[in-house]
């Protein structure tokens, strides 16, 4: 489904190269996330800027990706488009994840 990963300081940034995270790709997304986060920094930022649509299965896959990081590592989200943000807000998952408007916002928050 296409994820790329870079390490910036103490943060791993994973960029989603798919215009949607939906039921058809939820399992693949979760497995790709597991591989990308197999080892790495304590903080992972998932860059969703290119994602134009998510459904509840895609949301579930992001939740699963957070769980498989384990208790000591953190998954933050960056750059959600309005429709993606809406799904997080309606399901109240916006209270579980930190959502940053842009990747830059997410990265500058690291320094805090």
């Amino acid at each position: 489904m296409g994820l790329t990963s870079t390490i910036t300081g103490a943060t791993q940034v994973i960029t989603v190269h798919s215009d949607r995270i939906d039921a058809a790709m939820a399992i693949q997304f979760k497995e790709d996330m597991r591989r990308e986060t197999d080892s790495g920094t304590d903080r992972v930022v998932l860059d969703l800027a290119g994602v134009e649509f998510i459904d509840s299965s895609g949301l579930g896959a992001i939740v699963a990706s957070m769980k498989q990081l384990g208790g000591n590592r953190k998954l933050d989200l960056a750059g959600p488009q309005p429709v993606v943000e809406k799904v997080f807000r309606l399901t109240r998952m916006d209270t579980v994840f930190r959502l940053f408007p842009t990747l830059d916002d997410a990265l500058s928050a690291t320094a805090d």
Partner: protein
Amino acid sequence: MNPISNETCLELSFPATEAEASAGIEQLSIGLSNQGLPVQKADDVKIALAEAINNVVEHAYAGIAPAKVQVTCRLDQNRLDILISDTGNPLPGLHPPDGIPASVDTTPQDLPEGGFGWYLIYELTSDISYERRRGCNRLSLRFDFTGHS
């Protein structure tokens, strides 16, 4: 009633698989935009439509050979009606579930990874109705363009 000339119709039928559903949802969303679905309703319609179609793929045809999902959209200036029909298993109790969302007030490891579909459909539509007729499930979703969002 509005004269029929104010109304446009969009129909799509596709096999009930995840990949076909994904492409079908995208195609319907683009088609509705082209037919004049108000921009501010586009996201709501797409989310609700996706959840309803995914339910058919995942549940109605669970354990049986997947047949088709048929989607018919009727759009006029005040509202959009979408009828989703399939020949899969009926909804349990012949009624849509209550749509109570899974709670997120829990530890991270216990967070729900599903259980939001019907909740989202209820939140984003103006009305839902379901009937089982002649071996078909017929789920109707209505979106009003004024008042309730």
